[in-house]
């Protein structure tokens, strides 16, 4: 009896099709199926890909009409419906060409099923409010409401860190990072590895989140010679590099490759270069590194023989600065080590 009914796509009798759609979602709700099952059913019934974005829980699910999981994609102007009572949550149909008669009904029953299956537990926590406030896809009203829940007015600083368990009343995980919202100008702890960016108005929060992520790429570890805290707004021209160059592209650069080679046998290489670049004199750099001045001289001459340029010479200094910057970008998505990240 294989494939007697291969598809649920409804193209024949509209009334019968509408009933089938309603029964299908009612059935999923009665059986307490998963939200993912609702999205798959939405795609199968519509005969085109469908997706769910839940800003409160920070999840996106996309499936094609055969139930294959699809990667997250840029949101486009697909026909969509809001999940009632869940700010920033949507179900959409990726219909190319003309809408079908049942599309609106499918969306409506789908968001109702999502609503019933998730309940409202997920949408009133501070974590959900942080996600909603930073979600590019929510309405201005929902964003302002989320900030109200967080008691945030005026400029907000977005702090992004790899530290898993960031203390604070307005922090949550978004993707691979912990994101905290801080009122006003940045004043985070010094002993934190984080990128920050300021949003002057609520609508700038999603962009500020992206900028804080960019800044995080350029940080050093907490006890390293470079800054562990980087504010996007201080980067200026350097931000262009961090924004435009991917970790993969940075890693493919010859100078970065050479630094990686050198690090295999001399773990101090990056710290040494960073200290020399950041300090006004070699003597101060040596003090910062807790090594003798002559040891620093030995290291630098060894490095210049390996790298092909000298950090102490004008041209070499600039080249080293860019190489170290690219090296940080190249390794910005490495697995964090220990609790410090």
């Amino acid at each position, binding site marked *: *009896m*294989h494939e007697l009914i291969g*598809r649920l796509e409804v193209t024949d009798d509209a009334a019968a099709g509408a009933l089938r759609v309603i029964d*299908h979602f009612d059935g999923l709700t009665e059986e307490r*199926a998963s939200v993912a099952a609702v999205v798959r059913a939405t*795609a*199968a019934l519509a005969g085109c890909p469908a997706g769910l974005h839940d800003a409160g829980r920070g999840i996106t699910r996309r499936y094609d009409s055969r*139930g*294959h999981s699809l990667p997250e994609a840029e949101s486009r102007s697909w026909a969509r419906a809001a999940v009632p009572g869940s700010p920033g949550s949507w179900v959409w149909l990726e219909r190319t060409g003309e809408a079908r008669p049942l599309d609106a009904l499918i969306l409506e029953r789908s968001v109702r099923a999502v609503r019933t299956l998730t309940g409202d537990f997920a949408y009133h926590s501070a974590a959900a409010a942080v996600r909603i406030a930073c979600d590019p896809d929510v309405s201005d009203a929902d964003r302002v409401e989320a900030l109200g829940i967080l008691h945030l007015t005026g400029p907000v600083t977005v702090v992004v860190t790899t530290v898993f368990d960031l203390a604070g009343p307005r922090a949550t995980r978004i993707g691979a990072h912990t994101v905290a919202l801080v009122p006003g100008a940045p004043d985070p702890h010094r002993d934190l590895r984080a990128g920050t960016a300021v949003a002057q108005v609520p609508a700038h929060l999603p962009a500020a989140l992206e900028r804080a992520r960019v800044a995080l790429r350029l940080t050093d570890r907490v006890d390293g010679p470079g800054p562990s805290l980087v504010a996007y707004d201080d980067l200026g021209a350097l931000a262009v590099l961090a924004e435009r160059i991917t970790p993969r592209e940075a890693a493919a650069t010859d100078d970065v490759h050479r630094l990686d080679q050198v690090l295999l046998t001399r773990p101090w290489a990056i710290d040494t270069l960073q200290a020399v670049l950041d300090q006004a004199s070699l003597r101060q750099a040596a003090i910062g590194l807790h090594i003798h001045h002559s040891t620093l001289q030995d290291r630098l001459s060894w490095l210049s023989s390996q790298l092909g340029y000298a950090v102490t010479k004008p041209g070499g200094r600039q080249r080293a600065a860019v190489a170290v910057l690219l090296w940080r970008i190249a390794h910005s998505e490495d697995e964090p080590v220990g609790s410090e990240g």
Partner: protein
Amino acid sequence: MTDRTTADILGSTTARPPFDPELAPVLEAITAAMQPLSDETLAATRRYATEGIPGMAPVDLTAAGRVRVEERQVPGPEGAPDITLLILSPVEDRGPTGGVFHIHGGGMVSGDRRTGVAALLPFVADGSAVVVSVEYRLAPEHPDPAPVEDCYAGLVWTAKHAAELGINPERLLIAGGSAGGGLAAGTALLARDRAFPRLSHQVLVCPMLDDRFETHSSRMLDGEGIWDRNSNLYGWTALLGDRRGGPDVSPYAAPARAEDLSGLPRTYLDTGSAEVFRDEILIYARRLSEAGVSVDLHMWGGGFHAFDGMAAHAALSRASAATREEFIRRALED
């Protein structure tokens, strides 16, 4: 039918596992659209099986030009009419590939050579298989042994023309779902006993193996699920008439009756936990293993009969289809 009633034969309904939550709504839609199989509904069932549901897009067997579609009339069993084979081969010729001899499902009473063959298209389109699908005569107009002997005749022709078809004779699989799975198992038994051809694998997808209604699962679905015990009784009676359940049924018609399962090809078996064929499949897998055959067995909890074809979007279906596909891919590459 004899004067025994259906209830006499099938006894009381036994307990069943729940259907998977994601599959349950699909089941409701299908049972609403499909009548249980009977003399009255046979014509409509056959129409659905061959033409598909109205409004459903027909499958493009050429896979957008990557698959060559041919049909051949080849000799049937001795004294019987010719049979039609549907032959799907890669347009891009890259030397001999594995061959899949496909037998369609449809409860022994419906379906044609195109039914269900779409599931095998990807293997042809990517150049890893030639598929031959046989049009066998259907019960009740053509009772046993017509269906299984037609299948065997088609298999013999395929094996003898392997070189011409571009099939590596060392990689000849037999595959089928539901009644097609039962016929594939029966045809594999015939091939073993007649010493030709040598099959490398049998892929038996939720196969229909046993006409006796003695297992627990054969009695557990009455008016629910896909292919309930009443439809199953109708299918077996169409094939075997009064012989159904009695002593005169050949193992080629009902492979569960085969006493000797040794010397059969490497086997893939799957079943849903909530279908009538479940126990006969589990028993067949165990007995094949005891006879020294290498078996892959997958039981999918909460699955109804043929769930992955009918509700392809569900997570359970994706898992089941991917597992089977992976096995076939390995079988073709071995």
